[in-house]
């Protein structure tokens, strides 16, 4: 079976990359890339109580998820979701570990329920109302590839429209020294089984063992190397240029992922 999907919407947030529309000319190379701290707000679609409880990972995940759905004119309640991240709410993880190492181990209920790897997916469900299947993955530095592979098998085998949401955020010290992630980042792709008026490209995925593509722009390449979900950037760069062709993305050694891209417009 071929792993084929139509890409109907893209969401992107990263340092110096505010959203997909703003980032497209930067990735295409027509505007220079300039790094600056990322800003992202909690989505207004969350009820106030949940909005107060959202950390950076949740904000990034929900921002790119919403951007991809809006761009594809898609109803999130009709889409399955694949969330994939190397970590989760890493500030929350540090706070819990500090409390558990102290003399008073009482952690708050909110800290605990935000500690699960699937917290962003849970908040997405509450924000979007989607009762469709949502899975949440981790493959360390291969998390973007693992998410893309799961999403493509859902589209190809189940015939679902699937929203892939990949995101990462830095750890504070002392974990940062052990796992140095320099910035938060998020990429979402709305992947559909049929071509529509919104379709940007048709993609076909296969396992490969070629070396992953690098980016020519040094600042973007530094992000790709340092942040697991940013390893999807070569795919976004080809899409930003409106080109077709083949890109090779990082996955789990010795495997990489080859993506054949055919532009739809």
């Amino acid at each position: 079976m071929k792993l084929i999907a139509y890409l109907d919407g893209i969401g992107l947030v990263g340092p110096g990359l505010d959203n997909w529309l703003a980032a497209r000319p930067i990735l295409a190379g027509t505007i220079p890339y300039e790094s600056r701290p990322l800003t992202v707000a909690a989505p207004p679609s969350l009820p106030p109580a949940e909005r107060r409880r959202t950390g950076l990972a949740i904000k990034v995940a929900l921002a790119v998820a919403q951007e991809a759905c809006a761009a594809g004119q898609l109803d999130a309640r009709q889409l399955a979701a694949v969330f994939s991240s190397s970590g989760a709410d890493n500030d929350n993880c540090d706070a819990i570990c500090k409390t558990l190492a102290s003399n008073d181990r009482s952690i708050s209920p909110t800290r605990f329920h935000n500690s699960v790897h699937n917290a962003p997916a849970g908040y997405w469900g509450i924000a979007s109302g989607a009762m469709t299947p949502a899975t949440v993955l981790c493959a360390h530095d291969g998390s973007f590839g693992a998410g893309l592979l799961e999403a493509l098998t859902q589209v190809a085998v189940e015939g679902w429209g699937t929203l892939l949401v990949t995101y990462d955020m830095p750890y504070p010290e002392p974990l940062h020294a052990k796992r140095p992630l320099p910035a938060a980042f998020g990429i979402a792709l709305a992947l559909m089984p049929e071509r529509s008026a919104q379709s940007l490209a048709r993609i076909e995925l296969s396992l490969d063992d070629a070396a992953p593509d690098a980016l020519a722009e040094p600042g973007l390449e530094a992000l790709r190397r340092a942040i697991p979900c940013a390893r999807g950037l070569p795919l976004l760069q080809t899409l930003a240029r409106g080109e077709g062709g083949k890109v090779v993305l990082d996955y789990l050694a010795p495997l990489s992922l080859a993506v054949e891209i055919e532009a739809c417009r």
Partner: protein
Amino acid sequence: MLNSLWLSHFTAASCLGHGLAPTLAALLAQKSELVPCAFATVTDLATYIGEVAGVDEAPLPASLAEYECRNNRLAYLGLRQDGFNAAVGAAAARYGRRRVGVLLGTSTSGILQTEQAYRRRDPSTGALPDDFIYRTTHNTYSVADFVRSAFNLEGPAVVVSTACSSSAKVFASAARMIAAGVIDAAIVGGVDSLCLTTLYGFNSLELLSSEPCRPYDADRSGLSIGEAAAFILLERPAASLDADAVLLLGAGESSDAHHMSSPHPEGLGARMAMESALKAAGLQPADIDYINLHGTATPSNDAAEGRAVAALFGDTVPCSSTKGATGHTLGAAGGLEAVISALALQQGFLPGGVNTRRVDPGIPVQYLTANREVAPRRVLSNSFGFGGTNCSLILGRAQ
């Protein structure tokens, strides 16, 4: 509808014992192995736990030493049971090392390692100790990476971490990968281990029972946390199967879209997962002979799940939760309960729920409090997690 897949080999380690034989013996004897919590330095919580014996005494081999943590030790212990090691080796030889996937569930990963490392931070700099390795212990992917490395596999691998449905959802993902032809076989299941985060976390939510948990009891007062490793080798059915071979007939997934730590009060998401599993298997509710409930023994979980089961099955299908025996093994629960369901199918009995004295009269399902000597042909197993992630599996005998 996906084609059925064969659970060609499986094993589990929980507080009931190491491997299938002691697990089966404990189920047949309706034993609970929950004990008062004295795990690590946790002596201030009045709760019961299901601890796997001998994890601390089972270090990893030198070649895998960088993966040292309780979660991976428990995984390694599980892999060496019931000939599972050899079965994976044979599958890798038959299909190729790139054609065997590793899809495992965990919620804890090796977080205990980090919790302990935070106690050993450098007093002046706050730095974590040099011997702490993030990637191979703390990171949520660690256990799948460990298993992939232990077997020298080179195929797709991933951890699914959707809290307490994690190791049920891996069956659905693996089935899709096999259907798509990406792999020919998969190691699925899950590993979850005791740690301070879950013990103090569930305590903060006031969800820990001060006695061994009593699923579906009118006086249930919360859960007992357990730990487990469960591994299943999933592949396409052999040309001829023994009558007692166990097949994955269908899987169903849904989301509650309701609340981070409380289930949908009407069990709507739970019902959708069960309906979807039935549809995937091409079955009707009347085709199910036993339901292994999620049954955590928290007041809200059992009420919501019970409503969903009653709405779909009425009170005609015998059901029980085996968490009174094993505790709630969180990210390993789906895998462990799939193994228990497979044992029920092979051995021809319905496991009664232990610790439950008076079944909640407000939950109109046929809850078993004693084993029943009835041979089920098809079993449904429920796993529901924080964040409203639901998964139901249907397993059946080949004949």
